């Protein structure tokens, strides 16, 4: 039975259902409870944006606050995962990866390979990404490419409440380290979400909209932006196919290739900075694999090669919008050989 809930509630529900099902699942991070040691209420925050609220009361001893020491507690989540727990730790903002990245990319990601296949590290690191909240340069980045680059990590980036719940449940059940990236501008987005538990497998893209004139690959919040663009394009007689990869590692390149073989045109929309981005990664792969099908150069719509600015007018220029996507599609469509 489905009902309409928010992206935030869908994530909370995934955590709740998995914690109920598996006593090894523990949740911790900065203010994941909020209030530890303080004179006022416990669960005062339930996460900085309220995503983990209510879990503390339901699962005593399994939801914890941490001091602000990411290396220690993200590392602890990783170590605990090798020791029989299934931790879901929160790296509050993806921008903070710098203070704990070694534990993620040199330890968790490499244990299985370095130890000859004998390690299993079922850790999930939840983290917020993306611009739009006027949170400025150090709280607004889209650093998914950094994690996607690392062998041994998996990366999921849901674009809607239904995918958020299914991908998080999949992540928690996955025996490999997973970075679960929640777009901070999507927490209020509502959508139909089944009450029961379900899993969305990693490495399976979602075809959000079908069309035969152009393939638009979009990630996270950009899926909604692409959908907006597609409506306006349809009015101009251009039917866009929108593909949401859902996970950037593993990446479902086959679905993208199949679409490009049909449309002949690719536009990739990625909020991150352009160098070594998901856009350039997907673009290069498609150029290599489907060169013969392309009727126009691949278009990449990304942020600029700058930090995210604070002023709302500037931040709005940073973030790819529907008009930029429409412009890119028209460039591809109007291209003549």
């Amino acid at each position: 039975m489905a009902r309409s809930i928010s992206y935030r509630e869908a994530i909370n529900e995934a955590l709740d259902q998995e914690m109920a099902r598996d006593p090894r699942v523990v949740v911790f991070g900065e203010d994941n409870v909020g209030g530890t040691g303080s004179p006022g209420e416990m669960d005062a925050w339930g996460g900085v944006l309220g995503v983990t609220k209510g879990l503390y009361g339901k699962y005593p001893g399994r939801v914890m606050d941490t001091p602000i020491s990411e290396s220690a507690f993200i590392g602890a989540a990783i170590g605990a995962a090798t020791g029989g727990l299934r931790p879901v730790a929160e790296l509050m903002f993806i921008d903070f990866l710098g203070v704990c990245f070694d534990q993620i990319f040199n330890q968790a990601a490499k244990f299985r390979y370095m130890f000859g296949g004998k390690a299993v590290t079922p850790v999930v690191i939840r983290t917020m990404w993306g611009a739009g909240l006027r949170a400025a340069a150090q709280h607004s980045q889209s650093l998914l490419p950094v994690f996607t680059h690392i062998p041994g990590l998996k990366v999921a980036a849901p674009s809607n409440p239904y995918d958020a719940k299914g991908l998080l449940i999949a992540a928690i059940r996955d025996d490999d380290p997973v970075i679960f990236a929640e777009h901070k501008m999507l927490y209020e987005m509502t959508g139909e979400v089944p009450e029961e538990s379900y899993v969305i497998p990693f490495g399976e893209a979602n075809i959000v909209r079908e069309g035969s004139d152009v393939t638009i690959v979009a990630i996270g919040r950009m899926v909604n932006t692409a959908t907006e663009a597609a409506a306006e394009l349809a009015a101009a007689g251009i039917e866009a196919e929108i593909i949401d990869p859902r996970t950037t590692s593993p990446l479902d390149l086959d679905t993208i290739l199949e679409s490009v073989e049909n449309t002949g045109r690719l536009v990739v929309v990625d909020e991150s900075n352009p160098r070594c981005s998901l856009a350039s990664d997907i673009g290069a792969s498609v150029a290599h694999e489907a060169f013969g099908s392309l009727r126009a150069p691949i278009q990449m719509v990304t942020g600029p090669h700058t930090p995210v600015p604070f002023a709302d007018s500037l931040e709005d220029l940073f973030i790819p919008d529907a008009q930029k996507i429409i412009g890119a599609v028209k460039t591809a469509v109007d291209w003549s050989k």
Partner: protein
Amino acid sequence: MTGTLPTTVSQELGPDALLQVYRTMRTIREFEERVHEEFASGDIPGFVHLYAGEEASATGVCSHLDDRDAIASTHRGHGHCIAKGVDPKEMMAEIYGRATGSCKGKGGSMHIADLSKGMLGANGIVGGGPPLICGRALASKQLGTGGVAVAFFGDGASNQGTTLESLNLATVWNLPAIFVAENNGYAEATSSTWSVATDDIADRAAAFGMPGVIVDGFDFFAVHEAAGEAVARAREGAGPTLIEVKFTRYFGHFEGDQQLYRGDEVAQAREKLDCLKRFRARVTESGELTADQLDAVDREVATLIDSSVDEAKAAPRPAASELLTDVYVTY
């Protein structure tokens, strides 16, 4: 004879236990001395960092641990591996990069691990271990296994943020963890008397709300006693301890290090302080063991090390297909 050494000894060290720990220390010593020779002949790929001289630390601590317990090590990890029960033959094969190695040849000296024995791996990142140990301690606590987790780290790592954060977290979360700072006087080529701001690393314990103790790292019995107290504290839920072990390493930071930064402390230590010599003197003087018993162990260990090297050299390299395996459980 299998290469794996049983590790747990009772607090009361009877003759069997004494012989067992002597075997452990002798195995580490001969293993490292042999790797030193073999490396010089050019057969061993990559980097090795030898633990010779420090045997009492790994042995004294690990003698209180069993398979419930986890340890994390450093780039200088061979001693911790042997003390925790990792098979020396598999270790030697791993150092040579062979398919029969502990990690199928895919890890090497700095990443030898055996998770079935709670050995989380030697670690190529200074300070990489302490956060992982907080995690293993958390898992033991949550799952009620009664296990403890021990982070071995050096004087270099004692300054790394990850270590300091882990000390704090272990106290705040009241974890069954033990932090063993192996202060051998040098972080690579730089002296710890210069790089550590206080006289002793153990001074940091109070700053993070846990007891700190300093022990003579050349004295197995001193390490054994301090470690026993720390492990008991942890097992009974009284929280973490920081033990600072002071000694010196007999070889360079890595094999090939000309060690121009050192004085004559190694010659002095080998002559007057050596943990194996002191152990032998003490147990033979007290009559707990005889010289013959110890000599027999020495011969058995020599045979073990010889066959480890012979077998490692004869073992195949990993198949080409191994390049692409073991990245994920599923992908």
